[in-house]
């Protein structure tokens, strides 16, 4: 199938600003699903609130646009109810890790077979550029006009510590790599997290003097490096890209099936 077979064309053009990375994530997501030849009726996509969360409306799957931060909680109900469905949850950084931080770590801990995609643009874009838990120390935002004194999370470390069994990071500059990671994350049986660094030229870029959309994309290639590369020995500040965790642990819905079995047998 072609890309257009996966989108709801009547809702285009999309709402994202010119230069926003989220459209590239949308493209990567569709490429991944297309490669896997998944049936559209088998895919449920659940999102929360924010720029990133509008992605669900553009896609021709079963789509649910929920509450700020709560997408993973809704998705958990859907997945546990119908484990045969592929459940994908695209979230923004504020959505996933500030208001939704608790749901994020607990979904990871349960190892429920959901694919979480964190579209990290380091800012609350929908509300006009307030600092997020991933903005970083020293950045400027509308609610940090002098300088942001909040330290940021490392999504990969957080997801790993919380128990996610697949953890990866890429950027919207690295489109092929990103699509491949999403593909592997969807295939992985268990809770998978893919952080995708996605530029917000309108708010983050402008306030932090990162140039225009193209400059910001190029910047992402400069500040990242493949995991375990030699480049990091020279510059330890480089952010690693790649698949960091891929392991097998009992998946929640499968484990619950054994509970049903035990309950029926009375033990």
């Amino acid at each position, binding site marked *: 199938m072609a890309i257009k077979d996966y989108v709801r064309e009547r809702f285009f053009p999309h709402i994202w600003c010119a230069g926003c990375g989220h459209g590239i994530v949308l493209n990567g997501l569709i490429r991944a699903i297309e490669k896997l030849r998944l049936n559209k009726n088998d895919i449920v996509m*659940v999102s929360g609130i924010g720029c990133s969360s509008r992605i669900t409306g553009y896609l021709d799957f079963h789509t649910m646009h929920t509450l700020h931060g709560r997408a993973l909680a809704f998705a958990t*109900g859907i997945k546990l109810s119908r484990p045969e469905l592929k459940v994908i949850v695209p979230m923004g950084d504020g959505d996933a890790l500030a208001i939704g931080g608790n749901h994020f770590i*607990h979904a990871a801990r349960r190892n429920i077979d959901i694919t979480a995609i964190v579209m990290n643009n380091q800012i609350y874009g929908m509300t006009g550029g307030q600092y997020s838990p991933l903005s970083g120390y020293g950045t400027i935002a509308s609610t940090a006009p002098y300088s942001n004194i909040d330290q940021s999370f490392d999504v990969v470390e957080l997801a790993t510590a919380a128990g996610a069994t697949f953890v990866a990071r890429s950027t919207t500059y690295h489109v092929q790599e990103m699509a491949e990671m999403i593909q592997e994350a969807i295939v992985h049986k268990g809770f998978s997290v893919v952080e995708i660094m996605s530029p917000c030229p309108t708010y983050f870029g402008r306030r932090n003097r990162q140039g225009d959309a193209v400059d910001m994309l190029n910047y992402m290639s400069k500040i990242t490096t493949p995991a375990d590369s030699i480049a990091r020995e020279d510059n330890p500040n480089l952010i690693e890209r790649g698949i960091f965790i891929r392991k097998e642990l009992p998946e929640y819905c499968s484990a619950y099936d054994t509970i049903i079995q035990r309950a029926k047998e009375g033990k």
Partner: protein
Amino acid sequence: MKDKVKFVQGNEACVEGALYAGLDFFAGYPITPSTEIAELLAFRLPIGGGKFIQMEDEIASMCAIIGASLTGRKVMTATSGPGFSLMQEALGYAIMAEIPCVIVNVQRGGPSTGIPTHVSQGDVNQTRWGTHGDHSIVALTASNNQDVFAMTVEAFNISETYRTPVVLLFDEVVGHMRERLVLPEEGDIPIVERLKTSVKQGVDYHPYLPREDGRLPMSDFGGVHRYNVTGLYHDMWGFPSDDPGVVHGLIRHLMDKIDNRTNQLVRFKDFYTEDAEFLLISYGSAARSARHIVERHRRRGEKYGLLEMQTLWPFPYDLVRQKAAGARYIVVVEMNSGQVCQSVRLAVDRPERVSLANRIDGVLISPTDIQRMLHVIEGKGV
């Protein structure tokens, strides 16, 4: 017959009612005095192939049942005051997206952590207005185990019929009190199954286009119709819209589908109200004490009556006005500062007849308490 008679807590009667109604998905978080509901369902649900999950908080619990309901399950969560406060945002989502679900609130004293192991009926108005924005809600209550069972079944039936969340507003005394429960046979109480769409694959399905009778046939997530569900104002396809006509049409639909059916949704019990000069109005555990008083006075030939409310929302204004028409005194017996009393005053003619007999200290209002207050109301002193 023997195994159909049980000696159980109200919380267990609720579990029995829910399973009888077809509950097959529960998400919850431990909180006194509702916890037994979660514990019992963790044990009972998987036996029948249903699903139970303990979520990380009440917000997540409410969200999880909404998600599961969309896939075709009959769902429920159970909580008490603080947890009910946390559920309010997602409760509004279920109202907006018209997702059937049942929320049990076994009331304890508030505000805040309040008095967790003691009784209160302080969440009546929160149930009506807790989530933001204009909306309507259905809330049922009960005073004994048999009615807890019946109202729980009713809650599922109403929820499925009107695609709306229904709140079961029990209280600590009803939830924890042990008494007899007779389990009805299968088929004794009608069960409403979800109305599924008859639209075939490949034909345009409009998830939010009501039928002539106002009902919305559903298609399960994972089925042949792919559509969008959102908490935003939305059109008949489920896609966001800020068109004033769409917004107005939807908010009217959401309120009218409940408010215009108040008469169909009203459940109550009636004890000697016909000729009552002294009309007590009560609900939940408080209604047991009120009934005791009424029976005592009737034995002496005094014209006391009780209207036991089982539907609290939508408020049965017509019923209350009608029952109160001939009464000299109307006394609302409840364990809060007059939340139902307030609505009763709005409902009746000559509201100066309405008095409140209440306790707000975590102690069940007793027949003696009510009797003393009645003396004061009549001007006879304590």
